């Protein structure tokens, strides 16, 4: 399975990773090599095998619905780059 350069650019954008233009070619080759290994795995017969959600043979333990956390806003906000009126400030985002 081959991957095109523009797909690499799209994945990079979704993952918010900036890739310098001159590295995209090499990266495409390396990912294509990895996909070659995936192709080998794809060849295995998986009929009747249930997809695995977790490698541990165990099920989720649940916790009781109790409030166990208290307010540590001051400690958390002490390490934030910018806060105001109790809010964390981030570069402007608008839908």
């Amino acid at each position, binding site marked *: 399975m081959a991957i095109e350069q523009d797909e690499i650019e*799209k994945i990079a*954008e*979704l993952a*918010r990773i900036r890739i310098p233009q001159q590295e995209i070619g090499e990266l495409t080759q390396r990912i294509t090599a990895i996909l070659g290994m995936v192709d080998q795995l794809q060849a295995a017969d998986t009929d009747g095998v249930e*997809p695995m*959600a*977790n490698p*541990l043979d*165990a*099920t*989720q*333990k*649940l*916790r*009781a*619905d*109790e*409030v*166990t*956390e208290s*307010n*540590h*806003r001051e400690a*958390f*906000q002490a390490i934030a780059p*910018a806060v*105001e*009126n*109790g*809010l*964390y*400030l*981030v*570069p*402007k*985002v*608008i*839908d």
Partner: protein
Amino acid sequence: MQWETVIGLEVHLQLATRSKIFSGSATTFGAEPNTQASAVDLAMPGMLPVLNEQAVHFAVMFGLGIDAEIGMRSVFDRKNYFYPDLPKGYQISQFADPIVGRGQFEIQLEDGSSKQIGITRAHLEEDAGKSLHEDFHGMSGIDLNRAGTPLLEIVSEPDIRNAAEAVAYLKALHSLVTYLGISDGNMAEGSMRCDINISLRPQGQQEYGTRAEIKNVNSFRFVEKAIRHEFERQADILESGGRVVQETRLYDAERDETRPMRSKEVANDYRYFPEPDLLPVVIDEAYVQQVRDSLPELPAAKRHRFMEAYQLSAYDASVLSDSLALADFYEQVVGVCGDAKIAANWVQVELLGQLNRNELDISDSPVSASALGQLISRILDNSISGKIAKQVFEAMWQGEGSADDIIAARGLKQVSDTGALEAMVDEVIANNAAQVEQFLAADDAKRKKLVGFFVGQVMKASRGQANPKMVNQLLAEKLK
């Protein structure tokens, strides 16, 4: 061209747990910003989610409430996207194996008919925080109190055909989840938020048209308006030979229009994969049975019982079972007065009328169920007429006391004393010789009409307090 609208709704329902779905932070609405956001909610390094058992319990209750297949083994997945109010960079949700599978439930339409709406699935997920775009020196403010609040996303089949059905569906859903007690259903506080998928197709065509998704519509009224607007927008495009683009749009209530969302221009690609920090959730038959046994009577069952036990019309039963508080109130009134039909009229016309005029909820009614029941009892035992009862109700609403107090204080008791009534009837007959002559000359059919005049005169003389039944009897005897 006759267009058929095809609508599917996705409802995000906030579950009424005390703590968050994956952390022990409180979920109280309206707290100071970021005071209910723990290290887990902030996605601090090394923090791990632990699932809240109450969220699972509520989801199973909902599944049983819509006769759905319950996911005995459900799996959490990561839904990846970047937004500042989602600190982890992914939302923990369920994708391939949701906790609630296919189900269905019945909605009531205004013409009294009902319709089955299919539910595709319902899955558990965490809510994101809130972004505030007011001007913070060119920056946005983030409040993470809501991050991690448990949500049940309920996805309907494209079974809805117009705005009225969409609203009926949401009302039925609201009624169901509040009966179950799994959510407060408070739309104004965002406990029930709705995404609308809508497409048009020529009447009679099987194939679906291209749909647009309208995000985050948060009141019944806006759902109706957004659908009406979107129908017109798509019909205009199609009728001028254009094509609808599949996209996500936002409804702007102020301008009453929908417009495309800019940030989602890159096609949604959430790259779901199983959440490695959570194991599959496995529940057994015994657990499901235990939840089933603990379910309260649900709206549909109550509606049918009201129709059978109380002989109410489908419409009356539907109105009175709409909320649990109203249904309980009504049944209490029936318990006190013993007449289901009259109780239904009084609760719907007088009580709900006053409550709506004053924008009050049934739980804030100044007239209690037993007080209303006693008032109705006084109509039934002929102490007062229905007309006088309305005056008494008005006074009860103003806080002047019980029905009996008001009847006594204002001297409203109906005159059922034969002697007193006879005197009044005699007087009316004596004073209206011409009408008496006309009456006696008339045939039976005409007499039925003419007798009304005499009844009216007696009622007037008694200032509305004469027992109308007895007045009729006395007149029949005397006008021979």
